[in-house]
């Protein structure tokens, strides 16, 4: 992505007969950022559409079908509806906390996608410690959520914020241990190198199957989808920490949750399912096929299971996933020591 936008930036500057290297550098990043944003927005819209349609079929109904052919423009209609809603700041709410969390959550979620490469030469940035960076950014959200819950001055929001934080904290641990096992086997923290390692040897879902399962459950909890969507469980807490947000802010939170789903699916594909590796088709096509397959798995789980209670969520996290993750890291170490892969 960097090289493409660099070409474009250079072309623009040449056309304008300007020759400042710094300007060239800045313009390149601006173009790349806009491109990233466009890619994310397109992906999110497609994801929402795919989820609605697939969930509909799981539930023996059609999903959206009125707006546009097969309902493809339903998301845009919903978005316009959110745009024309009034933006409400609740009385007695803390304005700074209420609004700043929006920025923090949206920006941090976009950042996760920024560090995830999509093809060998198609990425926004690919730092050496990308894996750790991605999960570090993943961990920013709970703080913003607890601020949002407190700032809304609503009991449901407060409970939702606490729940969100508790859940994130307890699932970070098995998640990171599993990630470390992958890094242990692959010998690197760089996403591209992990995929290259899998191309050379084997998809890590095979040897680290327990880790794969732990990662799947933990990532579903991390992106707060059913069955682990306790922070915004609409049956007991109206919409959890998002209760007081309305209009565009609410729409941005909803989009953000899909950005995080996308990021979670992408990381899972990169770590366990061979990344962009695959025959015949170009690398980026394979990457997206796998990401959407993983997302379908999330939708499938959502369509089949009820919600877990918050204390049970924590129980599962600490009592089942953590031991499994530890077993997994032992397995990874054994593989590494024996030199099989």
């Amino acid at each position: 992505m960097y090289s493409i936008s660099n070409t474009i930036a250079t072309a623009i500057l040449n056309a304008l007969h300007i020759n400042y290297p710094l300007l060239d550098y800045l313009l390149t990043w601006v173009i790349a950022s806009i491109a990233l944003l466009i890619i994310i927005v397109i992906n999110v819209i497609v994801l929402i559409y795919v989820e609605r349609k697939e969930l509909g079929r799981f539930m023996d109904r059609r999903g959206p079908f009125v707006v546009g052919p097969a309902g493809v423009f339903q998301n845009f209609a919903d978005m316009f509806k959110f745009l024309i809603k009034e933006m409400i700041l609740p009385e007695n709410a803390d304005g700074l906390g209420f609004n700043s969390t929006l920025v923090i959550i949206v920006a941090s979620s976009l950042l996760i996608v920024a560090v995830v490469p999509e093809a060998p030469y198609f990425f926004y940035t690919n730092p050496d410690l990308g894996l750790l960076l991605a999960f570090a950014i993943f961990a920013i959200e709970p703080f913003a959520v607890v601020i949002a819950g407190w700032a809304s001055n609503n009991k449901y929001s407060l409970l939702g914020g606490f729940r969100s934080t508790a859940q994130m904290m307890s699932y970070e641990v098995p998640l990171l241990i599993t990630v470390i096992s992958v890094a242990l086997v692959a010998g690197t923290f760089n996403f591209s190198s992990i995929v290259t390692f899998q191309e050379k040897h084997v998809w890590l879902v095979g040897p680290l199957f327990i880790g794969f399962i732990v990662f799947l459950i933990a990532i579903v909890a991390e992106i707060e989808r059913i069955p682990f969507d306790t922070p915004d469980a609409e049956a007991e807490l109206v919409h959890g920490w998002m209760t007081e947000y309305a209009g565009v802010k609410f729409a941005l939170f909803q989009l953000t949750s899909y950005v995080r789903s996308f990021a979670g699916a992408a990381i899972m594909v990169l770590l366990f399912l061979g990344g962009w590796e695959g025959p015949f088709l170009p690398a980026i096509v394979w990457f997206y096929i796998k990401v959407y397959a993983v997302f379908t798995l999330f939708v499938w789980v959502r369509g089949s299971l009820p919600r877990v209670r918050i204390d049970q969520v924590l129980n599962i996290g600490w009592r089942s996933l953590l031991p499994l993750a530890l077993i997994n890291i032992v397995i990874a170490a054994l593989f590494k020591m024996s030199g099989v892969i």
Partner: protein
Amino acid sequence: MGYAFKPMWISLRTLIRTSIAGGKPNTLLYPEEKMELADDFRGELGLVMDRCVGCESCARICPNKCLNMMLDDAGNGIMKWMPALDLAQCMFCGLCVEVCPSTALHMTNNYETATKDRFEKIFLPHEWAIKPEEAPDQRPFPYPELYEINCTGCGACDRACPHDVIDMVSIPGTAKRRPNGTLGPEKKLPMFNYELCVSCALCVDACPFDALDMLPRTTTASDPVVRVEEVTSV
């Protein structure tokens, strides 16, 4: 967590059945496809003005008082009493259709009755009229029938009848002898002149001993508005 697979299998089967294996989902695409309705579905009310005899039975039975008798032109220049309808208050119970003796009321299959303003749903009699062909469910007129055992000959029905249908007649030979030897009054029973009857059932309501009941008759009486031959031919 091991037992999450059976429900996932069920939903996967539904997915396969509805999208891949040629089936289609359960949704009804509403504006294009409509629900299948039974013949006697209770939808919007319609009035066949030709058949209405103005008996007010519907207005009396209506639980919500949404029917009101009004004078209106029946379409052929004749002014007569017919019910006006406030459909916004109607709760589609169908009691009026059931009590209507002349099958002038009919519940059509139309259930899409939404309007922007509820006052658009207040109809004068000619505004909610339907054609007789649209209301095919004709049944024989019910007429008052006497249960002689209950009747005491009090004459309450005679006093209640608005059309002079009922005459109280003495039955010869029913007089009982009093202790002092004279004959008492003869027992009286109502006689019905069905030609004049509009089946309003006021006599049945008036009878204190439940001696009268509305029962369908096809042969005895000639129909005041619709001829019996037409009824049987439809």
